């Protein structure tokens, strides 16, 4: 309720509001493992991809944000809400939501960028903050999300080659 009031009062933006909601979603999803000795973030980290999608997707469905699907394009990891009830104006809120949920699991700063909106679905790319900044720049130029993913993979190989 406090993040919502802060958002309504204008102290925080929608992205911050989303991060606060994401953190609470991860806490509720970890609590479903019935392991009181471990933190919910650790439980989700050690869980399989399918298990995480099931628990996290359940919590997002309860919030009314649609069905959750996870796509792996190489090393890239993409979260897809299809259908998504929110339009493009709520992209910041959605990015903050996944950033708040995964930051606790990854143990470091995570950035999320909306790279594709096709029909009622929305596709979000998870990465480092620097990489997502470049990816956002590519998306704003109109590059398709597959090319964005390819570009991120090429950048990593180019850096590691010398």
């Amino acid at each position, binding site marked *: 309720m406090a993040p919502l009031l802060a958002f309504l009062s204008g102290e925080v933006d929608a992205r911050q509001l989303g991060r606060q909601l994401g953190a609470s979603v991860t806490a509720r999803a970890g609590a479903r493992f019935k392991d009181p000795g471990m933190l919910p973030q650790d439980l*989700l*980290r*050690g*869980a*399989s*991809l399918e*298990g*995480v999608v099931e628990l996290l997707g359940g919590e997002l469905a309860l919030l009314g944000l649609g069905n959750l699907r996870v796509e*792996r394009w*190489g*090393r*890239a*990891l993409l979260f897809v809400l299809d259908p998504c009830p929110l339009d493009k104006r709520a992209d910041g809120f959605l990015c903050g939501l996944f950033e708040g949920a*995964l930051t606790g*699991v*990854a143990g*470091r700063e*995570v950035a999320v960028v909306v790279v594709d909106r096709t029909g009622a679905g929305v596709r979000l790319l*998870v*990465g*480092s903050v*620097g*990489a997502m900044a*470049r*990816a956002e720049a590519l998306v704003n130029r109109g590059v398709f999300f597959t090319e964005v993913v390819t570009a*991120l*993979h090429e*950048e*990593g190989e180019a*850096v*590691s080659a010398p």
Partner: protein
Amino acid sequence: MTRDERISVLEGLLEKVRQSARDRGLALPSDGSHGLLRVTASPRLELSDEETAAPSEKHAGLVDSNGAPQSKPKLLSFEDAPSEARTAVSSVPAHVAIAAAAAARGGLVRFDGAFAEEPTSVGDPDQIEALALADAHAAEQGRDSVDEAPDADGPITLPPAASVRAPEPVLVRTSARPSAPLALADLEEEFGDSLPPQPTDAPAAPGPAPLYPTSPIAPPAYVGPPMSDRSPPMPPAYVASPASTRPAVAPPAYVPPSTTLIEPPPFAEPSRRDPPSTTRSGTEPPAAIAPPPRVADALQEAEPASTGYVDVSELDVIELDEAELIQSTPPETSLEPLRIPSPQQSEEGEVFDRPTRLSDATGIYGDAEADEDGEPFDPVTLPPSRALAPLAEGQRPTSEDEDVPASERKPRDVARPLDDALPDVDDEELAPESGEALSQRYPTNGREAARAPLSDSPDAPTPIPPPDDTAEVRALGSVDVVDRPMVPALDPILMTSARARPARTFGELLDDALSLGAPPPSL
């Protein structure tokens, strides 16, 4: 009503009748002789003592309206007629004089019956008027017949006997009861003895004729419109009504329309006609029919001219109209010798099981299967006249003439111009000089056009390039089949390898995603 009163009434009515007759254009014979009735009737009525006795005994109830006994009616003799009438009668023929006497006698009143029974006795003006008109008309007819002077109706001439036609009925319309017509027969009976002898110089009377063909009261008999085929008129009879009789030209005697009787030629008259049911028209193609072998054997022994096989073809079937029958000549009676088909010929398809009956001269044939009595037709019993010879060569119709009936044939128009006969017209079309197109009249082969020698003229058409013969066409039968040796059975060696994929947690996958765009941490 006394007698004088009745007479006065009658006189008044008579005046009315005369007036009515004048209005209608009728001339009364008693014009100018008023009082005739009184004069002719009263002096001759002499009553005897017996007649003046009790009316119930002698007169059988002849009592007038006042109860007075009536005198017995007395017939007038010829001498009772007025003097004028007698004079006229003495100078005219008897039949005319009779009518004139009847008219002059005062036809209005006849005293041949009981006076009390006359219609005038009751004093009915209508009845009296009707009677007076009828008698006046009769009197007019009699007067006109004897009047030789021209009157208003024109000269009176007696038409010749041949030109006199039957008079039209004259109808006198009366609303009261009909009066008795004055007929010539009655007058003859009445004045038969007193009639003067017929003058010798008078024309012979054509014969007695009634003054009125029909009763003047009765409606006229219906006479239909004149018809051309009406029966010729009756023998002429003189009618004593010249005023109303117009000399008419006798209609010509009925002559039936002339019909040209075309008698068939002798050969068209068959000696023995076939039954109608067995005679067919020549529309169906005849079949070559020959007697069966057993019959053929008998035919060989019989006279060949009488029973012979006639090869009937379709050309033998002729349809002749009347004109052709007249102009044609009888066929020759010579018969071809009998041709007996061989058994082999019979097996080859010709039908010889049923003979064909032919009519004698016209070529119309009939088959034996339609025989009326159902008996099989035996050509052996065929009389000689039934066996026909084929028509002469000149009489055989051509197939072209046989296609259509003779009535629908049209003469061949030989005067029609033919295009082929046009002079200076070359049938071969020259190629266009432009060279862009070949002749479209006749299809040309491109190969032949290519082989054609080129012309030296610069305006010569562009030659067609030779066709490209690069395609090789081989028949399917010339396909080569190469037999290869069988491949030995060898077991393939399969190299298989598998590496277990390590289970990665969501944490590890998330780390890989965060390392995207950055050098891998493992290096």
